[in-house]
């Protein structure tokens, strides 16, 4: 028994905890990705660079992160709930559409990313035809005006099926008798959503909000494929990756950005979990 736990914990320590701590150490060095470059401790230099004008990317990447996380979380949950409501039934159509909505998760980021790049190609694509008919011509993923909106849409499109499935699970736990009683009282659809469905699904709301926030905060697979962080989509994770593994190969500075991302992730996740838990207790008491 101990052997099993030991091997598992060893993996977790070696590839989870050690790198997390080592990241902090690397952020105080000038570690370079170019072989043969000597490494030395440089104190707070990397952090000073981040907050100075030498690296103008940092502040704008915090703004991009904020827009991306809030945008993805709000849209994914709103649309996910609407989808769950429409597709919760036992019928064949509903069940087929559920499978269809879940499919993009399985397709993977590269396939989903290239599909949407083809769909919104600035030279020849359906988007170019449709928007061109309205006199709108844009480089879409290659333009500041559109890139962030589109990246949020694709991220939501890929993960919507998961959010929907969790919400359907929640809808099924609400007894029909409550809705029947509400119908007798002449409650409007909006009130029904606000005072029955939404509060009674508190645990599923927690799961979905947490996954959307944490997922959009810490992963940037899709952004890498779609824009590689250009045109205002350089979230913290993307920025850290490009600093470390891009042309500058500055692992020290990249690690400092990752530390910032760690701090943001912890500063957001812990209060969020506490808030969602107390919300569940209050609503389901």
């Amino acid at each position: 028994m101990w052997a099993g736990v030991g091997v598992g914990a060893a993996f977790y320590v070696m590839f989870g905890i050690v790198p997390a701590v080592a990241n902090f150490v690397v952020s105080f060095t000038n570690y370079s990705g170019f072989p043969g470059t000597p490494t030395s401790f440089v104190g707070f230099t990397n952090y000073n660079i981040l907050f100075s004008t030498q690296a103008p990317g940092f502040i704008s990447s915090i703004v991009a992160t904020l827009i991306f996380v809030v945008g993805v979380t709000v849209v994914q949950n709103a649309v996910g709930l609407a989808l769950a409501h429409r597709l919760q039934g036992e019928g064949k159509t509903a069940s087929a559409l559920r499978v269809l909505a879940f499919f993009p998760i399985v397709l993977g980021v590269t396939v989903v990313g290239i599909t949407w790049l083809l769909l919104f190609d600035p030279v020849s694509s359906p988007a170019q035809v449709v928007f061109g008919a309205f006199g709108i011509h844009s480089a879409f993923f290659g333009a500041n005006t559109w890139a962030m909106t589109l990246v949020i849409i694709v991220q939501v499109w890929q993960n919507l099926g998961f959010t929907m499935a969790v919400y359907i699970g929640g809808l099924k736990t609400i007894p029909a008798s409550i809705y029947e009683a509400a119908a007798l009282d002449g409650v409007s659809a909006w009130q029904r959503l606000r005072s029955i469905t939404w509060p009674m699904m508190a645990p599923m709301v927690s799961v979905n909000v947490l996954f959307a926030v944490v997922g959009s905060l810490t992963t940037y697979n899709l952004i890498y494929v779609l824009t590689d962080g250009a045109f205002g989509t350089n979230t913290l994770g993307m920025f850290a990756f490009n600093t470390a593994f891009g042309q500058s190969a500055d692992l020290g500075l990249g690690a400092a950005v990752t530390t910032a991302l760690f701090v943001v992730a912890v500063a957001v996740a812990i209060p969020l979990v506490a808030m969602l838990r107390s919300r569940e207790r209050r609503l389901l008491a």
Partner: protein
Amino acid sequence: MKFSNPLRVRRLASGLLIALIFLVPIVYVIMISLESPSQFAAHPMQPPLPPHIGNFGSAWRQGDLGPEIINTIIYAVGGAGISTGLSLLIAFPIARRLIRWSSPLFQWFVIGLALPIPYIPLFIEARDLGLYNNRIGYILLHVEPGLPLGVILLSAFVSSIPRELDEAAWLDGASYPRYIVSFVAPLAWPSIVITFLYSLLFVWNDIIGPVVFLASPSLFPVARGVYSFYSSNESAYTLLAAAVMIVSAPVAILFAASQKQLLRATMGIR
């Protein structure tokens, strides 16, 4: 069907809208994958009749898709398999509180779910430990990210297995490994499958990992291989569409076989 009923019309319209949102991108890729480059240049939005299947052969050869698909399967099955096995070995003692510090250990994994993957130190670690740019290393590096979710899912399931079963088996003299393999694993099978599928999806979806941990194109999984193919053929739309179709086929088959379980588990139905 009665179209006079407004509720019915609304449901039909909303169902159609949902179908369009998810189908249009997929159908577009299928359509242009069957268009010849000259048809695409002249009138891309017309259905490709007769279909031009030459794109698939060209994409397969030029994109080196065969070896990439094999690499992906090795990485995904290896990484997710080890990860799921270890998750069970951690989750069982935690759920049964057989070891000290069960709940802090569990919380550790919950925290792990929320943290970003620190690729920079992992890259240095991979290089120093000889895990950089080789298959075994790449698999080992993809075990840890699956552990948090695996431990959380599986310990929830183990808690629902009656404790009396443990005691009966131990009275019969079953050893711990034997007990896990022949009693717990079959009972927990549905959640083991889900854990496996979700960590499989993580490996399959990872594009940052292959950029950081791999250098030789012959070791690339599909995620990176197709992305490189895209970067060097950005305007060969029909070829790209065919490549996307080919690499989606294996996962589409896997999904067709597992969608019921995957969706039911995500919806929380056992």
